[in-house]
């Protein structure tokens, strides 16, 4: 019975959201605000169950002496919330600095070692071998260089640089056109999922349970 009630609640909320296509209305606003609240409540649940309990509270309270060092992330994490107390809001900068610095450090290595070097390497190394034909490799090299030159705004795009930039724009248009086609595919897929839920899942589940 709870499954039946649940799926009909889901269908009702879906239709509340879809009602916005006709015009803005209180049903949509209600569903929208409920969505915002439930999403945040969901975060609380998954963070508590999947991170805070197994990685912090269980080891800390299970064997305090052996895991006393976990007080450091606990205090740093709680310190983030001092930003909501105006008198001591500056203290949150300490935790923010640690948190952001680490991910910025990872990001730097990731971008250079994981993106720039392999992407440049696969462009210029082995231009007549590999999986693609030599012509395709040449087109790829021309494309990458012309796009990079297009994005170099420190010199005026005139004469030779202007011509190469124009080629770069054409490659970008091909890429954006492909991206648009795939974006249409993605958006339509989401709608297919919802329509499948409303017209197939809902009716099948209702028929099975009644």
């Amino acid at each position: 019975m709870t499954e039946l009630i649940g799926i009909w609640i889901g269908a009702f909320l879906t239709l509340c959201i879809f009602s916005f296509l006709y015009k803005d209305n209180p049903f949509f606003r209600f569903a929208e605000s409920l969505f915002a609240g439930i999403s945040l409540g969901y975060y609380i649940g998954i963070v508590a169950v999947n991170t805070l309990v197994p990685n912090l509270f269980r080891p800390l309270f299970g064997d305090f002496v052996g895991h006393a060092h976990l007080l450091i992330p606990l205090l740093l994490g709680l310190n983030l919330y001092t930003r909501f107390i105006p008198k001591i809001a500056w203290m949150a900068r300490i935790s923010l600095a640690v948190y952001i610095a680490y991910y910025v450090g990872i990001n730097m290595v990731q971008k250079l070692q994981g993106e720039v070097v392999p992407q440049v390497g696969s462009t210029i190394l082995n231009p007549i071998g590999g999986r693609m034909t030599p012509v395709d490799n040449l087109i790829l090299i021309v494309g990458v260089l012309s796009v990079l030159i297009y994005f170099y705004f420190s010199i005026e795009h005139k004469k030779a640089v202007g011509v190469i930039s124009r080629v770069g724009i054409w490659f970008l248009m091909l890429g954006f056109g492909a991206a648009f086609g795939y974006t249409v595919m993605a958006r339509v897929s989401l709608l297919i999922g919802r329509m499948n839920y409303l017209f197939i899942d809902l009716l099948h589940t209702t028929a099975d349970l009644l």
Partner: protein
Amino acid sequence: MFWKLRLPLLLTLFVGAVPIVTFFLTEHTPVIGPAVPFVRDRVESYMVIIAGFALLLGVVSVVQGSIRKIERRRPGWPFAISLLTGLLVMGAFGILSAMRVGPFQGLLTAPDGSDTPFYWMTRNMFNPLQAAMFSLLAFYIASAAFRAFRVRNVEATILLAAAFVVMLGRTPLGEYVFSWLPGGERWLPQVTDWIMAVPNAAAQRGIIIGAALGAASLSLRVILGIERSYLGVKE
């Protein structure tokens, strides 16, 4: 001044250097070798926990804002009540699931196969709401394509042509278009594959390289304390 600015900047420098330095050093490095995996692993495990606390920062902001809206009866204040109700009920279910109290035995199904209250709300409210919200985009993209996609110049024509080839070629329709010709059912899909693998890859690679260099330089600026906006400091 030290506590409010200099200390955070020093912490940024040292903590930001950890993933970079430990990338190049290993436990076999002379002298400091044994400390490398210890520092790296400790910092990584701490970041997983701090990320959890950071994710919940938004909850406090939203609760504060909603309460203020209800107190001052701002336009749309009744909907703030539904927001807070959803948050409190789902959040309470989540915390009780973490404590494994009564019927709240985790985030999915209970040992007897029935849905836990948290999972029931996830399946019947969270999932449909989120999916429906994003599925509206299908309608908007169709409407926007009709109204705004105009072939005004050479570049727009190239974009439209590529979009059409991909939209046709990535569906079974693409095989039917030229199927009346011998071997024609593979033409459009193969042209689509070529567009994706060559010119599209070239354009995306150029964007990736440019963006990655920009991101790396911004990262260096943050670590060195040149960029301070993340601390709320006005330059």
